[in-house]
């Protein structure tokens, strides 16, 4: 803690690192180790161009690729009481929250929006694994309830992208109570006769899987996504034996009847449009690139898909 370590060393380091490739231009695939050029990876929807590994996607990236012309409007989520238990482990919960908000630039672990998807009006919610492991607390519960209420109000289907390590322990029992709370939200949709489609992405575990993620009309997962209640490590410990290859991965769940489909990310949007339109009794979607929805395209925007 002196002048040298605080000022001189960082300055020298920054002078040198400038000559190197900035971190954000290249990322390494965790699965196969290939170095991937940032733009190429984004164009490929964060799927490794060499091994097809589906990397994490933020809710904003998802929505940009889901909605026509990348246009959507956010639905506001009621802010719950902050730190209801005044929880402290090695760090205080509010401090963990601040760090997560700073690194992600998001308020919480779920984003809700509405817009058109293949000219089909939908509400979508996406969980953000980069925000405290996507964990489900009061806010995520409120987000799903807000999404369901908006869907019922505007008679739109709800498409939910799940990604979470489970419940947010820092909210104790209140995080557990999001299981019944989000179930009530799903029931609102069901009773209104609106489709509820769950896209399970890597990873979807714990209380999230054991509530809204497993109550969809249709369950579609991304390839190789880990989907489970108890994690593989816990199970291996309990039963004291090695688990089979691919255990609790999307394909394994498909084989065991827990999913309807496992779909590559590049086909996901088309498939969601097809399924949603059939469930709603609408005519087939027009294939190919679509312009942004007319009523919202006040300023003409270039089609990002071209």
């Amino acid at each position: 803690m002196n002048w040298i370590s605080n000022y001189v060393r960082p300055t020298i380091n920054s002078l040198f690192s400038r000559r190197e490739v900035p971190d954000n231009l290249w990322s390494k695939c965790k699965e196969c180790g290939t170095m991937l050029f940032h733009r190429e990876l984004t164009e490929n929807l964060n799927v490794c161009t060499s091994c097809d590994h589906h990397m994490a996607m933020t809710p904003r990236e998802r929505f940009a690729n889901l909605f026509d012309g990348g246009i959507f409007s956010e639905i506001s989520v009621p802010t719950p009481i902050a730190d209801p238990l005044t929880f402290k482990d090695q760090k205080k919960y509010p401090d963990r929250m601040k760090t997560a908000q700073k690194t992600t630039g998001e308020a919480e672990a779920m984003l809700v929006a509405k817009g058109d998807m293949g000219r089909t009006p939908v509400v979508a919610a996406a969980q953000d694994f980069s925000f405290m492991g996507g964990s489900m607390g009061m806010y995520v519960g409120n987000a799903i309830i807000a999404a369901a209420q908006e869907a019922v109000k505007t008679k739109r289907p709800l498409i939910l992208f799940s990604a979470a390590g489970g419940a947010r322990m820092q909210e104790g029992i209140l995080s557990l109570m999001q299981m019944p709370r989000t179930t009530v939200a799903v029931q609102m949709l069901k009773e209104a006769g609106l489709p509820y489609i769950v896209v399970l992405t890597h990873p979807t575990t714990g209380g999230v899987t054991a509530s809204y993620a497993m109550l969809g009309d249709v369950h579609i997962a991304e390839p190789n996504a880990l989907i489970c209640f108890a994690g593989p490590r816990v199970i291996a410990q309990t039963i004291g034996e090695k688990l089979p290859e691919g255990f609790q991965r999307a394909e394994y769940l498909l084989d065991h009847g827990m999913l309807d489909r496992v779909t590559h990310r590049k086909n996901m949007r088309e498939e969601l449009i097809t399924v949603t339109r059939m469930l709603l009794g609408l005519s087939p979607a027009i294939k190919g690139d679509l312009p942004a929805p007319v009523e919202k395209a006040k300023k003409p925007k270039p089609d990002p898909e071209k």
Partner: protein
Amino acid sequence: MNNYLEFEKPLAEIEGKAEELRAMARANEEMDIEKEAAALDKKAEALLKELYENLTPWRKCQIARHPDRPHCKDYIETLFTEYTPLAGDRNFADDHAVMGGLARIGGTPVVIIGHEKGHNTKTRIERNFGMARPEGYRKAIRLMELADKFGLPIISLVDTAGAYPGKGAEERGQSEAIARSTEKCLQVKVPFISVIIGEGGSGGAVAFATADRVVMLEHSTYAVISPEGCASILWKDAEKMREAAEALRLTAQDLEKLGVADRVLPEPLGGAQRDRAGTMASVGKEIETLLKELKQKKPDQLRKERRQKYLDIGAKGLAA
């Protein structure tokens, strides 16, 4: 009393001594030990009071798991008449970790569902230590449907460390089974009372405890994760369970403040294990009172209020 908890060791010593004295006196009639034994009794009682007046959350967890506490089976045998177990999920198997069937309480026919942990090695293994597999939750769903169809109130007795984390359980859809069971709890239009008699372990408990009224015994717990599990994740040290138990706010008293428990039933001094009959009787009385209250409500109203209750939970934090 056979089983003492770790923090009860000083108590075990005193009570042991008193017991020893009395045994000696029984063998040798000339000995007059009554005065001495009575003094020890008094000392033991004072200590018991002291121990149980200021229980830490971790000690409460230990009491909630006490092997001598009355379990689901004891409650069913004591409080209910004409208990008729109904088995199986009509799909794969009958899960022995979950008891369920028809029974009467105070003359009223009800559907009863509960986790049973077992009371000795043999029954514990048979009951899988009260940790249900998907079949257990699917059996519960079936029984809740039956109750709904015939307008019978549902009573659930919750006492589980959690859903069983096994290979087969995962393969057969543990998450889906729990999700559907919770969904069914929120769907039925009959009175639904849940009593947490010991441990309310995470999703495995929610699946049965999403009810119109959730009653918790004084020393029962209800948490999103076990203190040991929480400690090993957040503290990276499973030995920090005391801190985790504190932070999680899992005691019945805190849960009442948070609006998760509707009522906390007092236990006898020294916990339910010291007066099993008394504890069970007070649970029975509470169930009957609540049944009377809930029967006044119309089916649609019951469901609507149940759903609203869960939507509202947590809005005020600990100030609720």
